[in-house]
């Protein structure tokens, strides 16, 4: 990309980030950097067992330990009638019955259900004192058999995680027309079948979760600093469902947040407990996770087992797709855990293709593992992985080129109604594929493959032509599908008397660069420099409301709310300008920062109008209020549909199984682009996480004991600089048709599109050796075993 620099404030310019100076100089303010007078420290005592009854807890020794202020267990939260952590999305099963929704107590009530489940909290003068006292808390457990694998959990006789969820089933859900799909298969020329696992991941934002709560007895209010992506949602769920507090008495501040990737969307037990405890001990209470706690308590991602079948005619045209997925939800329903393997997954199975009949069933199981919820992409990577793997396999079985089979099946006319509920507004899949093939120099691949062959290496190309549904979401549609919240966004434009602007957005930036991108949008619209616009986010005390940042929604929904508020600013500005210029309001035009009487050179600058609004000496006070401050809420009319083509080129050493990604090319259609530099950075980061999943990352539990075996950076392989190639990225633009900026969102695409491209490339490389199937991550051992014809069994 690297578009040439445009005017500083222009949309489409790579404006350097306004937020960078503080981060570059150690001036960032993350939750753990906040210190309040009289602050105490919380340490959570967690279950060492995957599944056990709590027989007895003896606090007395811990209470006597130096510096200890309080020790609380589930008995204390129950005595205060604390509610359970709510789930934000009600799924109805195939029979229309509501999903099983077992209680999710912030501190365990009689039973623990995963290693790391919260049993007690110790509050002390220092963190070390709290941690020392934890050693003295006596908890008697009666250890029960555990089940960690979702397939095993659904079998008869498996250990039961919740009394209220027989057979560990939360729901059996379906989408699509089963009869039509069966009919399509009946007339198929060929059916490709695949059994595939989407490996479980641990998000691992580098800032561990943290929460610091302060209760102010003077006005009975609470302030919670928390590493969170959506402070208003956090406050709403916590006050309305768990603590029963009046919402106006709770201020949630999500200051600088060190990465989220989904894992900081959710309302967690620790946030609730420190808030509650700050009143009990009448002191600020701080909790910061250590990395081990992050591994055990941050919601995990993915963990699907899927059987899929694709029916084709003799030309490789897709006739029908049948998918059966078993999804692991973990021990409890996390905030949006139920929606990820359903409405964020099944709805994406059409991909970029005209497949006329699709039917998907999802069996969702409780297990004795950490709850599973949204992680970068959330359901869409799982759908894309199934679809793009089976499509490439179908190409091999039909003796077609991987790109050719895709071209034959691309949707080309829009809007397009898929058989799985979504209506794509626009896209241009062929152009993305063409551009990606050029970027990847596909034409030169045979020569590179031959050259590698001479060195005893196997080269392969892998494609992924993905789609995602972003910009969550039309509230009425989401509500009809079971969402228990609205999904709009709010924005406020506060024009100051001298014409500078503060923007308050309900979106939250934890790396995405909203302070710059949103400022560009406002500056371009008002014709003022980017420097004259500041963006404020992450504080329920300062912005009207907010649904926060997830699902690549910030610019598509949050940006649209800002545009709506700007419409109001412009409308009021025209009224003021008409008065100042003694013209009719209908004759006033606003462009390049000036209100002009159409067809004349009579004009007043934006700053002049702002000044008049606040110093209304010459002002139509009989008709118009002073001031220039507007708020808007925007509820999207549809999802947005970013899409693109990712092509991986790999070289495999057949002697060792080591895979090297020698080239990775991505062409994405995100609609209009505000800041190409930031968009490119989002793609890079997404690709790193997707390639991390494909090559390195894997969450593993011991099948017998339920212990997390990958609970540290020694065991869970995070992508490091030396593990990744430099990516080639470009964009193709079809503007979104239904939001004012024509934008689609770019945060998740890299993580969605890349895993199947990598795996398809390795299979392409090794197909001559008879390898037909591989499971992620592609560790040298797995690849080597597959070459030897002894594939690793994936649990």
């Amino acid at each position, binding site marked *: 990309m690297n578009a040439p620099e445009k005017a500083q404030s222009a949309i489409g310019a790579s404006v350097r980030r306004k937020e960078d100076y503080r981060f570059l100089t*150690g001036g*960032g*303010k993350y939750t753990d950097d906040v210190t309040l007078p009289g602050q105490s420290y919380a340490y959570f005592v967690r279950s060492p067992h995957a599944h056990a009854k709590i027989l007895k807890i003896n606090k007395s020794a811990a209470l006597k330990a130096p510096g200890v202020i309080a020790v609380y267990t589930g008995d204390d939260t129950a005595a205060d009638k604390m509610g359970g952590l709510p789930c934000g999305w009600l799924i109805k099963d195939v029979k229309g019955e509501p999903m099983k929704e077992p209680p999710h107590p912030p501190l365990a009530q009689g039973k623990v259900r995963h290693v790391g489940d919260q049993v007690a909290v110790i509050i002390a003068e220092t963190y070390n004192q709290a941690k020392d006292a934890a050693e003295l808390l006596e908890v008697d457990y009666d250890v029960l058999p555990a089940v960690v694998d979702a397939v095993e959990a659904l079998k008869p006789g498996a250990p039961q995680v919740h009394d209220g969820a027989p057979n560990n089933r939360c729901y059996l859900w379906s989408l699509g027309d089963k009869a039509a799909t069966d009919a399509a298969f009946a007339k198929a020329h060929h059916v490709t079948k695949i059994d595939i696992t989407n490996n479980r991941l641990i998000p691992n934002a580098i800032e561990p979760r943290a929460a610091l709560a302060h209760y102010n007895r003077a006005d009975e209010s609470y302030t919670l600093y928390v590493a969170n992506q959506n402070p208003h949602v956090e406050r709403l769920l916590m006050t309305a469902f768990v603590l029963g507090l009046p919402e106006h008495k709770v201020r949630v501040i999500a200051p600088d947040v060190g990465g989220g990737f989904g894992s900081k969307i959710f309302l967690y037990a620790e946030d609730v407990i420190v808030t509650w405890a700050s009143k009990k001990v009448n002191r600020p209470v701080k909790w910061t996770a250590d990395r081990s706690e992050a591994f055990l308590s941050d919601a995990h991602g993915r963990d699907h087992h899927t059987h899929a079948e694709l029916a084709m005619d003799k030309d490789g045209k897709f006739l029908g797709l049948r998918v059966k997925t078993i999804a692991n939800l973990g021990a409890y329903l996390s905030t949006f855990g139920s929606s990820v393997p359903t409405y964020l997954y099944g709805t994406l199975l059409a991909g970029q293709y005209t497949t006329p009949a699709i039917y998907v069933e999802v069996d969702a199981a409780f297990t004795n593992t950490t709850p599973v919820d949204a992680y970068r992409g959330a359901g869409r990577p799982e759908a894309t992985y199934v679809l793009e793997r089976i499509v490439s396999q179908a190409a091999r079985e039909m003796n077609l080129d991987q790109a050719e089979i895709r071209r034959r099946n691309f949707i080309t006319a829009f809007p397009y109604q898929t058989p799985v509920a979504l209506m794509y507004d626009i896209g241009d899949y062929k152009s993305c594929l063409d551009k990606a093939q050029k970027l990847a120099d596909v034409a030169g691949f045979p020569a590179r493959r031959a050259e590698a062959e001479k060195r005893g290496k196997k080269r392969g190309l892998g494609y992924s032509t993905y789609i995602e549904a972003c910009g969550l979401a039309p509230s009425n549609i989401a509500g009809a599908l079971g969402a228990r919240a609205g999904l709009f966004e709010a924005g406020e434009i506060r024009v100051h008397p001298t014409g500078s602007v503060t923007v308050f957005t309900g979106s939250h930036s934890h790396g995405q660069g909203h302070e710059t991108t949103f400022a560009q949008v406002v500056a371009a619209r008002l014709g003022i420099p980017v420097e004259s616009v500041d963006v404020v986010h992450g504080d329920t005390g300062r912005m009207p409301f907010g649904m926060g940042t997830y699902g690549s929604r910030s610019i598509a929904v949050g940006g649209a709310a800002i545009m709506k508020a700007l419409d109001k600013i412009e409308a009021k500005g025209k009224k003021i300008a008409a008065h100042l210029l003694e013209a009719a309001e209908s004759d006033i035009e606003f462009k390049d920062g000036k209100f002009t009487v159409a067809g004349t050179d009579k004009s007043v600058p934006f700053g002049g109008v702002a000044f008049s609004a606040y110093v209304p000496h010459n002002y139509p006070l009989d008709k118009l209020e002073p001031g220039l401050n507007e708020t808007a809420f925007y509820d999207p009319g549809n999802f947005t549909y970013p899409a693109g083509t990712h092509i991986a080129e790999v070289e495999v050493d057949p002697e060792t199984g080591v895979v090297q990604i020698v080239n990775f090319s991505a062409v994405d259609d995100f609609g209009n682009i505000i800041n190409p530099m930031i968009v490119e950075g989002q793609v*890079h980061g997404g690709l790193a996480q997707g390639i991390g999943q494909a090559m390195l990352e894997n969450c593993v539990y011991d099948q017998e004991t339920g212990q997390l075996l990958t609970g540290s*950076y020694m065991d869970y392989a995070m992508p*490091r600089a030396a593990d*990744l190639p430099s990516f080639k990225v470009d964009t193709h633009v079809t503007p979104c048709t239904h939001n004012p900026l024509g934008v689609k969102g770019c945060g998740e695409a*890299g993580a969605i599109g890349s895993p199947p491209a990598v795996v398809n490339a390795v299979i392409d490389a090794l197909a001559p050796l008879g390898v037909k199937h591989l499971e992620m991550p592609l560790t040298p051992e797995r690849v080597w075993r597959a070459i030897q014809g002894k594939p690793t069994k994936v649990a």
Partner: protein
Amino acid sequence: MAKTHISFNLNGRPVDVLAEPRELLIHVLREQLAHTGPHIGCETSHCGACTVDLNGRSVKSCTVLAVQAQGGNVLTVEGLATNGTLHPLQEEFMQQHGLQCGFCTPGMLVRAYRFLQENPNPSEEEIRTGMSGNICRCTGYQNIVKAVQHAAKRLQAAGGK
């Protein structure tokens, strides 16, 4: 627990603290000396968010005892800029968009600062290896690598430092 008196230079200025023998350098920097630039990401020396420079070497301050800094020189991210003027590394991290959430950035910068003294003219591969003790979850490293490359050129043009 009895506390020890520790004196060292922090970003060129003498500091004195009292710390327990078990206290780690990162905690003393963040909690006693209000230098919250270095962050705690894993407390096991794997992620590098806590990287500081101690006596001319990159160290993970989450696994260095505070007493080990006795009489030493410690450089943190707060000490990189001069009178508000960014160090070329800081400037290039901004120009090349080598940071997103900013949490790993202080450790990345201080590691890159030492790395470029060890290897003033590195190849891309050497940068990727030299920086692989620091995890970034946001950027995919590409722009970090670019930032270090550009900073290396600027520093070389300016005659090192």
